[in-house]
């Protein structure tokens, strides 16, 4: 499948061929050939020859020993005859299926017969006309250059092929490598096109190749301008070569070149670079850089001195300059080019940037259109950035919300929260080892990860945190101890290598909006998951008895306790809830990141930041914090795409400064609830 397409990509054909190809393919229905025509067409050959055979016999040598230069002649001749079998012949010739009988030089297709024999098939009628031993017939093997030419001549006819797949193939071939000759056949094929999708593609492709091969300047400019809102890469690929520039210079006004802009040395172009251009063309003296002068000094060492200065003294630039100027006086080195002489030399010339394409209207239109595309691309990048930020924010939200709830209710920071995320991810991995169906395993893993992480959280609360009530700093360190222990246990159990958590196939791929904006389905799924949990938590906290009690304990545990709420029970349940959500976040994160024992660590600091920035004990605060941090990170990355480390650094510095202005986070508890 691929080979003919690739061959077609190197098309060298002539436009008349394409026109004729359409005629002949239009006549494909009338397959039978009358014998009389043959006689008229080739009177000097025996009447037994078919019309195509006759043409080929005329060009017998060119067919048998086809070369890239001569093959056009044969194709032209075949096309000129407008024979329906001509196309079949060209295809099979290109596929090395043409044979030549050595006895009389006639061409045949063959089929395998008994033993060493081959069945001869007439190239005109397609009927078997006898058998021949393999030794008496030669297979023709045109080289790849020839096959390329043949394939390209076929593209035009393929554009009108009844099979849509073939038509698409032809379009693929043109897209890969367009030629001037494709323009007309493509235009002609649009009208008869019935498939609307292919028709749209053809129309678009026509505009793309008109940019490069349009006959008049106006048609090209029109085609160029039509792409001003187009984001696809092929349009830009067609436009970019038009605005390629090179730097040149001239004495006086530049002539005979399509100047993009003139360059002022020292401003648009560095003086050294401009001077280098002159030196390269031997229009100025090279002795400019220190290295050049040093080379001259080294070449002139005589008896331990250079220009009268002892070598041992040449350890300062000043002494070297002195030695060099005496060399210049002796005429052994070119004069040193000072800044003044360089400026004087540069002033003699006008430096400019010129387009490679000499047509000024086209290049201006192309430059303007590219500008407009760039703007549009920028707009779309921004949109894409918003989507990225949203996706990152939803990940941070999932990772941090559990932390925020426990922090709000109990006033303790759980350093092992990252390890609960890790537990969730490993749960997903283990479930996938047991249940091979990815869809089912994810559906099982999500609740299971919640249960296991919640159980771990409750255990931690019961065994450690409860005993450290009112000592928040020590809780922080104790949970850190749990964190390193859990991490190492995971490392010992699962090994240090990353474990895959494969997403079901319906989450593969991305939702492609255009060539710039695309969102992977996994990220959409995580976004949905975050939304679901946001809604769920809002409901639980604001509409249920448990939520009421949790809020009461958050605001004032002692008062809540005197109202008959058991803070111990609430602490345990909130801790379980928060840890369980971390487990769910772990499954989600594991789907796009590799599952390692350090997985939790990668998210824990960002989760802390989210909680600190968003404010404690409030789902809306966490949402605000996650959104802010997610967007901030993406925006900084946008301005400095090559350096994600720097992005994180700046983000953390920004957060430290932000805390200055809102020490309690974006959404702070107010009034008595805010009391420590």
């Amino acid at each position, binding site marked *: 499948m691929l080979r003919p397409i690739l061959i077609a990509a190197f098309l060298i054909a002539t436009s008349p061929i394409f026109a004729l190809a359409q005629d002949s393919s239009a006549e494909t229905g009338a397959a039978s050939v009358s014998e009389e025509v043959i006689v008229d067409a080739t009177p000097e050959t025996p009447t037994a020859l078919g019309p195509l055979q006759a043409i080929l016999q005329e060009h017998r040598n060119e067919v048998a020993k086809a070369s890239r230069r001569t093959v056009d002649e044969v194709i032209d001749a075949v096309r000129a005859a407008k024979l329906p079998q001509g196309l079949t012949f060209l295809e099979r010739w290109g596929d090395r299926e043409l044979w030549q009988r050595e006895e009389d030089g006639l061409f045949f297709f063959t089929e395998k017969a008994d033993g060493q024999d081959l069945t001869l098939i007439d190239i005109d009628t397609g009927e078997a006309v006898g058998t021949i031993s393999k030794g008496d017939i030669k297979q023709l093997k045109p080289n790849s250059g020839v096959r390329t030419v043949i394939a390209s001549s076929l593209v035009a006819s393929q554009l009108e092929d009844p099979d849509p797949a073939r038509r698409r193939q032809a379009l693929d071939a043109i897209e890969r490598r367009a030629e001037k000759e494709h323009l007309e056949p493509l235009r002609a094929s649009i009208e008869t096109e019935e498939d609307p999708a292919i028709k749209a593609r053809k129309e678009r492709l026509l505009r793309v190749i008109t940019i490069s091969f349009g006959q008049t300047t106006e048609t090209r400019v029109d085609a160029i301008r039509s792409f001003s809102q187009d984001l696809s890469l092929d349009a830009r690929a067609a436009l970019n070569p038009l605005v390629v520039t090179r730097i040149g210079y001239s004495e006086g006004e530049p002539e005979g070149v399509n100047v993009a802009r003139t360059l002022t040395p020292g401003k648009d172009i560095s003086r050294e670079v401009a001077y280098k251009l002159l030196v390269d063309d031997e229009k100025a003296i090279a002795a400019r850089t220190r290295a050049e002068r040093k080379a001259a000094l080294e070449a002139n060492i005589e008896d331990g001195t250079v220009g009268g200065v002892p070598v041992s003294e040449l350890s300062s630039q000043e002494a070297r300059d002195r030695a060099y100027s005496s060399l210049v006086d002796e005429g052994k080195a070119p004069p040193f080019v000072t800044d003044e002489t360089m400026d004087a030399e540069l002033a003699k010339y006008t430096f400019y940037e010129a387009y490679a394409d000499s047509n000024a209207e086209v290049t201006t239109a192309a430059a303007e259109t590219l500008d407009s595309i760039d703007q549009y691309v920028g707009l779309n990048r921004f949109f894409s950035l918003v989507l990225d930020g949203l996706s990152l924010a939803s990940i941070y939200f999932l990772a941090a919300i559990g932390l925020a709830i426990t922090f709000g209710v109990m006033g303790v920071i759980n350093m092992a929260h990252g390890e609960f995320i890790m537990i969730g991810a490993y749960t997903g991995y283990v479930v996938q080892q047991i249940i091979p169906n990815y869809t089912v395993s994810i559906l099982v893993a999500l609740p299971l990860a919640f249960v296991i992480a919640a159980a771990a959280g409750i255990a931690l609360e019961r065994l450690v945190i409860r005993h450290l009530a009112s000592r928040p700093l020590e809780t922080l*360190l*104790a949970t*850190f101890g749990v964190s390193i222990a859990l991490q190492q246990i995971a490392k*010992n159990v699962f090994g240090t290598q990353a474990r895959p958590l494969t997403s079901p196939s319906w989450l593969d791929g991305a939702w492609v909006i255009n060539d710039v904006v695309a969102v992977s389905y996994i990220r959409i799924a995580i976004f949905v998951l975050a939304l679901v949990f946001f809604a769920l938590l809002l409901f639980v906290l604001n509409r249920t008895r448990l939520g009421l009690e949790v809020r009461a304990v958050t605001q004032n545990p002692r008062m809540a306790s005197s109202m008959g709420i058991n803070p111990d029970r609430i602490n345990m349940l909130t801790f379980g809830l928060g840890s369980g959500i971390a487990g769910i976040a772990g499954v989600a994160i594991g789907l796009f990141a590799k599952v390692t024992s350090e997985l939790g660590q990668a998210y824990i600091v960002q989760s802390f930041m989210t909680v600190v920035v968003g404010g404690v004990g409030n789902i809306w605060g966490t949402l605000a914090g996650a959104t802010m941090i997610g967007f901030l990170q993406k925006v900084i990355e946008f301005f400095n795409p090559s350096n994600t480390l720097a992005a994180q650094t700046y983000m953390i510095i920004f957060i430290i400064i932000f805390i200055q202005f809102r020490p309690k986070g974006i959404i702070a508890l107010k009034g008595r609830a805010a009391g420590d």
Partner: protein
Amino acid sequence: MKNTFLARNPSVLVFILLLAVITLLATVFSEAYGTGLLPTNYVKILGKTLCLCLIAIAMDLVWGYCGILSLGHFAFFGLGGYMIGMWLMYARTEDIVIASMTNAALPPTPDEVRDAIGTQIFGVVGGSDVPLVWSFAHSLPIQLALVVLVPGLLALVFGWLAFRSRVTGVYLSILTQAMTLALSLYLFQNDSGLRGNNGLSGLQNIPGLTDAPQSVLSIWFMWGSALALGLGYVFAAWMVSGKFGNVVKAIRDDEARIRFLGYSVEAYKLFIFTVTAVIAAIAGAIYYPQAGIVNPAEIAPIASIYLAVWVAIGGRGRLYGAVIGAALVSLLSSWFTGGQAPDLPLGFYTVQWVDWWQVLLGLSFVLVTLFAPRGIAGMFDRLVRKDAA
């Protein structure tokens, strides 16, 4: 005055005495000056441990006495190492470059030497220019001053920002951790001018002392570390035992009440934070020439948390507790992870300490926080008091 100071801090004399004895013993058994019973490697470990004890004292001052759980002091430690490392690396490379240029046709100019040093040092991160931050790397006195100034200034600015907005407790810990992470991420970049994740290396070679073997240098550095630790201990003891120390401890116990009494809590906190950062930086500047390499991974937040772990296990609020914790945990840690510890066969499973040491450390940390909140020193105190009673 002297008498009263010692009377209030009986541990100082004991500590100095023990320190001197240990250092002397190590010298007597060393390869360079003694019987050779103690390999140079162990001398280096001892010297490094003394530096870690010094930073543990700093951590104890800021956390145990002032109640600020800083998760950023190891960043100051690392920065101190970077500052001294810049001079060590630059001066050594300069020696090498000049030596290699003696055979050139022309004697090198200062600019050429600088360019060659740049290529030599920054070749690994694809640079050849000497970055701006290395402007003073040729001068030992300036870099020594920077050891104090850079971390001190960072602590001052960060502390001022944090304390003036009354960030306290867990929030402050998280914020210091963020600062540490930001610094280490910044240093991880290649264009930070400090060789990215390669860090600074070859620091064990002291320029100008190339003839001295490592066995001799290690002893000198051990004495240097011991001296710094002794001075640091006395300084810390002096600080916490006077009126100043009382205010600081009061801030730890009830910050609001001290503020109402008219003390400028923020100024005290800022002072303690900055001074301990400087102590940490000095400890780092002595540590890294013995370690030989400093890189951003050393500054990662986890290191600062370990520091807190040492102090907690040793016992907060007691200077000797911090020293005991740092020495014990760091030495045990290198013993267990170094593969010297014998495996523990349980019949069904053989515990390999390289794998399980972290688990043991984590769990013992939880146990210490739960059951011995005053750490090893606390248990020690209880014993002493029982004897007295």
